């Protein structure tokens, strides 16, 4: 699997102007642009599973699955997940390959607030795919005393 993929993405960002049309906050849009370069991700093939309403934002289960045969000729190379409102837009970047068999990755994330999550997937043909989901975070009523 290819580390250059990430470096290439970083280099591309310099030349891409920020598009004011996007609804996502700038930091997330910028982070996504670092990955996709000049390409426009197509919505589809990607499923982002995250509960629409969570009892607590500090441990939110999240699964990304991609519809892909995962063969040498046609597979998912990377899955990136971003958020709008945390201090940093990147949540994780996973690298996969034909050996993965299935393009499904699960983890647990922190969300400081209700917000939109976006997954960007790069396939072996160099194309990008995306999916988004909104999460509403209801905070616990009985919290620790504030410091």
């Amino acid at each position, binding site marked *: *699997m290819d580390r250059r993929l*990430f470096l290439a993405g970083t280099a591309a960002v310099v030349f891409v102007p920020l598009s004011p049309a996007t609804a996502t906050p700038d930091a997330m849009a910028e982070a996504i642009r670092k990955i996709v370069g000049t390409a426009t991700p197509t919505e589809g093939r990607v499923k982002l599973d995250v509960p629409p309403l969570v009892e607590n934002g*500090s*441990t*939110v289960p999240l*699964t990304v699955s991609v519809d892909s045969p995962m063969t040498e000729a046609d597979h998912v190379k990377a899955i990136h997940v971003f*958020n709008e409102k*945390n*201090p*940093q837009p*990147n*949540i*994780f*970047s*996973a*690298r*996969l*390959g*034909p*050996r*993965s*068999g*299935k*393009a*499904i*990755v*699960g*983890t*647990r*994330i*922190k*969300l400081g607030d209700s917000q939109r999550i976006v997954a960007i997937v790069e396939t072996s043909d160099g194309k990008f795919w995306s999916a988004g989901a909104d999460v509403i975070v209801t905070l616990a009523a009985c919290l620790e005393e504030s*410091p």
Partner: protein
Amino acid sequence: MSNILVNAPKTARRGAVIEIKALIMHPMETGFRPGPNGRIIPRNIIERFTATWNGAEIFAMDMSPAIAANPFVSFFAEAKESGTVVLRWTGDEGFVAEQRVDIAVE
């Protein structure tokens, strides 16, 4: 020594796609939180998780402070040959942890 829990099958049919789940004890301190004394607690996270099967990388994940404490990761792999899967976590403050899992492929 780190506390790690791994869920992976001990045996698999050749060509089967198996799920591997791993959980590790780690605070994933974001570096954005004030401590009891009001000062920011320095960032202490796992930055990278990798999985190899008989030495070849089968999965990798770059993590950020937005990954929850005691990180959980699940992913899939095709069982091609018997061998050892090595899961490895590395991060801030020189953190390194490793867990080996033997999988027999028949």
